[in-house]
């Protein structure tokens, strides 16, 4: 598999299927691991960093963890390719911007990615569409076991898996669920979710993680505690308590919109569709926001000739790096906005 094979299609997690997919975009589990015998990257020399990268890369490729695994040497990759991987949630923004020997292994289904030499030596990640946390845990646990046969990970009897940052120590796990909550946003009740999440020691971030604005009503909810709560318990809390509660709020809000604000709802849905089908210049923020309203309209049965999956794909394909890859040229300013608008018009008219 080549990196360019990724551009034209959406990853597994954007299939728009999977349980609760009208509200849950994707489920992600990440594990942080460090290899015993090497210092953390904070203090590793260039030589050790390179040596470690080579050793981990070989181990991953030998372990045959996913079909047709692609390994990208990020130190050699272009900025645009790194940006593309960020947009697909395969590497972090931090990993893209860092320097020195580092890479990422990606399975052809894109549900598995392994970042090498990020903040920790290894960051394993499984990403699934819809609410599939148990499935994600099973897969990542197996990958972790398989790697561990070849690499001994730093582990402390009291502190568990050791990580460069003490906020990740213990299980090293981060469970994140990406939610689409347009109705709560429209009714001005989204704060309720933020408050509830905060009470449960959860973090809420935007579409592209730490420090990004939650745009297009897409929100990522993740745990912050990694010590004293085991993996299964954490996942079970997400699956049985946290996420159903938020989904329930959102569904109630959607029902309210449909029953009490039907005309106003139709107005924003069809206004969004109208702009998406006619605009000539479109920023990525505006696109996300309008696509969010369109997605809501599809779920509530107001728009019938467009599939949720088409909207999911547009969310990804209209991101700057994807757009430039699709058009096969560097685009900036109005050229980029024009290309985005044209691509959206083409996609939404074709159906």
């Amino acid at each position, binding site marked *: 598999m080549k990196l360019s094979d990724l551009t034209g299609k959406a990853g597994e997690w954007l299939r728009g299927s999977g349980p609760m997919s009208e509200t849950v975009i994707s489920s992600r589990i990440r594990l942080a691991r460090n290899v015993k015998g090497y210092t953390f990257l*904070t203090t590793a020399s260039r030589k050790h960093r390179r040596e470690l990268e080579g050793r981990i890369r070989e181990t991953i490729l030998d372990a045959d963890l996913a079909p047709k695994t692609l390994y990208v040497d990020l130190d050699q990759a272009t900025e645009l390719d790194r940006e593309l991987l960020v947009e697909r949630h395969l590497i972090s923004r931090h990993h893209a911007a860092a320097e020195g020997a580092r890479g990422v292994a990606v399975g052809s289904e894109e549900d598995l990615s392994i970042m090498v030499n990020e903040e920790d030596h290894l960051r394993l990640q499984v990403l699934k569409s819809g609410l599939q946390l148990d499935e994600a845990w099973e897969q990542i646990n197996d990958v972790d076991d398989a790697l561990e046969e070849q690499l001994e990970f730093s582990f402390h009897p009291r502190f*568990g898996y050791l990580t*460069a940052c*003490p*906020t990740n120590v213990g299980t090293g796990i981060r469970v994140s669920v990406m939610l689409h909550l347009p109705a709560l946003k429209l009714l001005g009740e*989204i704060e309720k979710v933020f408050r509830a999440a905060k009470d449960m020691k959860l973090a809420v971030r935007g579409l592209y993680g730490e420090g990004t604005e939650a745009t297009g009503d897409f929100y990522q909810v993740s745990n912050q505690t990694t010590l004293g709560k085991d993996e299964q318990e954490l996942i079970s809390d997400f699956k049985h308590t946290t996420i159903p509660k938020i989904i329930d709020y959102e569904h109630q809000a959607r029902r309210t919109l449909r029953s009490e604000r039907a005309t106003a709802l139709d107005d924003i849905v069809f206004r969004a569709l109208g702009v998406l089908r006619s605009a000539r210049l479109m920023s990525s*923020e505006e696109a996300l926001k*309008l696509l969010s309203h369109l997605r809501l309209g599809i779920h509530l049965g107001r728009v019938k000739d467009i599939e949720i999956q088409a909207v999911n794909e547009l969310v990804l394909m209209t991101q700057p790096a994807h757009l430039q890859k699709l058009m096969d040229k560097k685009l900036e300013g109005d050229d980029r906005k024009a290309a985005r608008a044209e691509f959206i018009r083409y996609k939404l008219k074709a159906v």
Partner: protein
Amino acid sequence: MPEGAPDNPACEHCSKPKTVHVTEIKAGQKIEKHLCKDCPFVNEGVGAGAGGKSHQPINELLSNFVLAHSGAGASTAQKKCEVCGMTWAKFKQGGLLGCENDYSLFEEQLTPLLKRAHEGSTHHTGKVPTRRRGDGAVRKRPNMNRLRRELTRAVEAEDYEAAARLRDQIAETEGN
């Protein structure tokens, strides 16, 4: 988003052309809103909560808590990791540890920080590396926290059979 601020001519809530600018003071910050007249949707604080740094970064924890509480006495100041050269002062600056040895070396100083960051917990419960299981090096740690929580739940639900079983399990684990 990677692109600069959009020149978005629409209401922040419903995409109608915007005609009103509202400036709101929230938590000491001035927030500008661009809304349509008679927006049919309730308007809440723009981006409050989600856009901000809700993940309390380690540096913040360090400056708010550890610096205030740990005296960082002379003995701490003199400690230096012989593997990677990390000192407590360097850690406070960067927020990242240098090698696995640092967790043992600075165990005492890290404990209050970990407590703060992990809802009071200072012990790992959860997965243990396969190669550590059953070889006598490290015993698989049973999850006491979970057992205790399950016990509380069982008692609340008046499921005394389950409660008795859990109590036995806890006693057995503690006896080990």
